[in-house]
């Protein structure tokens, strides 16, 4: 295995872990991977249900004000996550998201654009201040995960990039 392969694998596992994957099989050409994470639940069968219940409770995003579009659902379970393998830029603050410098203006970035680290890719308005959101990595811009005028919380995923 090449170092690159190991790195790739690590990134994969990190990713799987982050998304709480339990088992993972891959069969592609000559490469087969099968992976299964420790299930804390399984070993302690039924214990700590309340804690888990809380951990898995749907994330209550604030109800949007009248003039806001309906808030998106929290990220879907991993198995269906279209962001798998992508780098996620998260919001460093609470506020209202805008993808363009002013109403009607063009979006900061569009799908397929190359994005440099530090490049402004969105705005979060908080207390009437427009805070520029810079990309924390370089790569190809894949998608904006929130919509214009949407209320967002600290740590909420805003964009996906393909690194490199």
């Amino acid at each position: 295995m090449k170092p690159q392969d190991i790195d790739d694998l690590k990134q994969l596992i990190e990713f799987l872990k982050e998304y709480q994957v339990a088992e993972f099989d891959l069969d592609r050409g000559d490469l087969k991977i099968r992976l299964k994470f420790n299930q804390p639940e399984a070993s302690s069968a039924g214990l700590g249900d309340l804690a888990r219940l809380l951990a898995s409770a749907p994330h209550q995003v604030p109800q949007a004000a009248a003039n806001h579009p309906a808030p998106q659902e929290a990220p879907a379970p991993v198995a269906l996550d279209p962001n798998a393998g992508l780098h996620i830029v998260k919001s460093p603050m609470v506020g209202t998201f805008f993808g363009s410098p002013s109403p009607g203006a063009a979006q900061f970035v569009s799908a397929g654009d190359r994005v440099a680290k530090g490049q402004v890719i969105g705005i979060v308005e908080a207390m009437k201040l427009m805070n520029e959101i810079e990309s924390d990595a370089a790569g190809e811009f894949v998608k904006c995960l929130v919509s214009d005028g949407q209320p967002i919380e600290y740590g909420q995923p805003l964009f996906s990039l393909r690194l490199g």
Partner: protein
Amino acid sequence: MFRKVLIANRGEIALRVINACRELGIRTVAVYSEADRNSLHVRFADEAICIGPPRLAESYLNVPAVISAAEIADVDAIHPGYGLLSENANFAEVCRASNIKFIGPPPEVTRLMGEKDKARQAMKRAHVPILPGSDGVVATADEALGWAKKVGYPVILKAKAGGGGRGMRIVRAPEELPNLFHAATTEAANAFGNGELYMEKFVENPRHIEFQVLADEHGNVRTLFERECSIQRRHQKLIEESPSLQVTPKMREEISRTLCHCLKEIGYQNAGTVEFLMDDDRQLHFIEMNTRVQVEHPITEAITGVDIVKAQLLIASGVRLDEILPEKLEIRGHAIECRINAEHPVKFTPSAGKITAFNVPGGNGVRVDTAQYAEGVVPPYYDSLIAKLIVHGRDRTEAIAKMERALSQFIVQGIETSIPLHQAIFQDPGFRAGKFDTKFMEDFLARTS
């Protein structure tokens, strides 16, 4: 009444406010740091917004984050709980500027009460008994020597912007004064960014007695009697009770009347607590006012039947006090609260971690306010209070018996708690007899260690 309220706090008090809102039909918005994602205040609010990483300054004390959350959630009002932003006049001002009702007094009043020397003067003018001391700030050690001579030693130097015992020095003789003055002013400057001091007569081992007040926005003020909070360690209250055995009906009546008059003059609004020292002659002396709901408010709720947090919400929405309180308030029975802290019961070191077992006592006359649960985690970043155990009996004897019963059934495993300490205090003959002052814990710990 408000449609939607944001609770700018965490832990049991956040849940307490959420409960009051829900019971009044108000929608609730919790804010939380990343460390509190699985907290009950997040779970039991209608909406919840993560406002930052665990550190207080970046989340619960982060004014722009809290206000932004309030704006995106489109709330009418913010309840600050106690601690955190609750006595921050600037925060109350930002709320006002953002057109969000701050549930508490106006910022001007909070600011006045935050400047301890001015609060003292305001109380003095309204004939609330205060300790002899300086007229406002003492600028120099020389000036302090003059005041001390007039007041009589021992005296205490206190920081104008003070709190939590910092910037305080007891002076027992003139020759000590200059050095202690400089130490206090330096400490105050470091702690509060303001080195100004004032002086008071120092009372040896006083009792700590406080009066609960409610004021509406139409000039009406009532008191809900007093609480006895002398069982404290390093200015941290451990056990509170109401009524105080030391306060006679006549004193209660007189202090209440004076306070109502005074707070009306000042333009006080919403809930507040006026703290007094009681000296050996049972005289009460004003020390400071807390301009928010108090940790120990449930004991007053128990003996009066008044829901103080609901009263706060109703007052802030403009309701008159006579619609909130019964015409005649009476003291019914006796209530005691133990603050259950996540800390070692002897060493007092904080004990964060995962709670592996959690059984709360229940039954007649027992109330538990907590946001903890089995498998819950006590994060290392915040206050160590994890639960308040409140009992209500027909008299102090029954309340003590009830507390002993309840403490023995309060099981917390996985972390250390103050429960064994509370159990030991309830065995103490002095405590049981009601014979104690603020020096009690120091003596108790010396005796039992």
